């Protein structure tokens, strides 16, 4: 099913981050221990009323998993492509007989794997602070795979359009993180005024965080605040739209490779 060439590139991409855990896995692990300790235990302990009927530290876990997963999937793909362009060793791949689709799927797949590993690490850290029982396992896995692949695909685009390393930082710090922080990671949409609830619905991160929260805890903000006609389908509709979007982004990646955008003269 997968060619020898594809497997070689996929393996190379996996090894690149697996062999450097200090750079790839330790930072999100430490950051999330701090999140859980400060927001969950110290501040969360002072929130007497459960958020959406859930203890605050448990409510935080899905959002932090999403934040870690998509940040790392995006960062891995964008760095891998841009660093390869910067030092021109991406030529090793580009001058090979791999098809453009194989190249893209290898880069996206490996970056998604890094995002999922980080997501799993955050879940394990969360488990150290509070017991978790998974409510909709299959839905959770499907959602995690889709959002990891989506942001890995977006990372490819970021890596192709970046002109220097600062551009990568800007994308991650000034675009991704604000969207996630306003994506109902640290609060429930039900806590907002109706007008802000609707404004929040324009943020795509809301759907990702909500889907993972539904898969993990069985709770969905969208089921509470979305219009009634949509409400029953909310988590599945989100997953469907995200899956379609992921397909579109990966197709765009393949097209950019085909035309050599950012890769060839």
């Amino acid at each position: 099913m997968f060619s020898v060439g594809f497997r070689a590139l996929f393996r190379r991409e996996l090894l690149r981050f697996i062999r450097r855990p200090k750079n790839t896995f330790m930072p999100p692990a430490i950051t999330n221990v701090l999140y859980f300790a400060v927001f969950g235990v110290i501040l969360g302990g002072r929130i007497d009323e459960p958020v959406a009927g859930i203890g605050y530290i448990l409510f935080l876990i899905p959002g932090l998993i999403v934040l870690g997963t998509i940040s790392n999937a995006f960062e891995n793909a964008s760095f891998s492509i841009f660093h390869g362009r910067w030092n021109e060793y991406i030529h090793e791949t580009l001058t090979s007989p791999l098809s453009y689709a194989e190249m893209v799927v290898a880069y996206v797949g490996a970056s998604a794997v890094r995002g999922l590993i980080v997501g799993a690490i955050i879940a394990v850290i969360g488990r150290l602070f509070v017991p978790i029982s998974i409510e909709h396992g299959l839905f959770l896995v499907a959602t995690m795979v889709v959002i990891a692949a989506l942001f890995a695909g977006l990372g490819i685009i970021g890596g192709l359009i970046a002109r220097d390393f600062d551009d990568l930082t800007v994308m991650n710090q000034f675009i991704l993180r604000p969207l996630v922080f306003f994506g109902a990671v640290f609060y429930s949409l039900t806590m907002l005024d109706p007008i802000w609830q609707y404004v929040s619905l324009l943020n795509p991160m809301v759907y990702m965080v909500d889907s993972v929260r539904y898969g993990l805890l069985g709770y969905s903000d969208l089921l509470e605040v979305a219009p009634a006609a949509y409400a029953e389908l909310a988590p599945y509709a989100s997953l469907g739209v995200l899956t379609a979007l992921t397909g579109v982004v990966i197709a765009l990646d393949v097209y950019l490779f085909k035309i050599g955008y950012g890769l060839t003269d």
Partner: protein
Amino acid sequence: MPPAIETVDLVKEYGDLRALQELSLTVEKGEFFGLLGPNGAGKTTFINTLVGLVRKTGGEARVFGHDVEGDYQQARDAIGVAPQEFNVDRFFPIREVLEHKAGYHGIPADEAAERADEVLKRVGIYDKRNERFDWLSGGMKRRLLLARALVTDPDLLILDEPTAGVDVQLRHDLWELVTELNEEGTTILLTTHYIEEAERLCDRVAIMNEGRKVTVATPDELKTRGTDTISVQLESTPAVAPDLKAYAHETSVSGDHLEVRVDDGGSIAPRLLNDLEAMGYEITDLEISRTSLEEIFVDLTRSEDRTVTRSSATADDGESDHDLEREQEGVA
């Protein structure tokens, strides 16, 4: 059997700048072909078009009959390229870099490992197999680029100035190795600034200038295109150069020497001696010097029209140690 390389009216434009101008070139299978030209002639642009790092603007380019864009996978599978730039994966020891490259070309992992060892031994850096690229010396880096090109066992080996800036010993080692590969049947396309290298190694050479093909010939044919200089020592210095326009391109007096530039010095010399004696000059010595290939090269590439500015893209024929200036960023 299709040629190893065949381009027809190949064009590459960067905005108003034309890096390749209707370049038509054929390199036969098994040939050792040289590409000569000054910096900015378009040699690297030509090579990069073949391997997929430059997208052509017009014309056709095929490698063993495979269109470089339409059948890019087949075309690229046949090519091993050792570029000027040190564009090597810095994250892995060099042995793994070679294994990865072989893997991308569909070579299974076990065989890729064997081939990596084999080519590292062949280029003489096997004992450095566990080092990363950045820790190698300049000469070893050049050897690794060659090893990487060879690890996929290519039918067409492209060497873009492989001996630029390397010491004499390494240059001779590389010459020996590529000659051996060519004798084993590998087609070789070599770009170089060293005329001696082309003269010594190549079956045919193409001279390029400003994106155009100036000529294609064997090194011997090229040399016959140059003029010879007959230097005649005379007993008495003439006040003005004698009139030898019947066969001389140029005649000049330098001290007690008369210098006459002609097409074929060997056949003209007896006639020249007779003519000079008939004019009353007493000849004491005569010497014929042939034009070197280097002088012919300079003549052919000395363009009268410099209006075509060299593009930034074709300037990639120049020194390319810019990667040395690039600092490695932290691992994300």
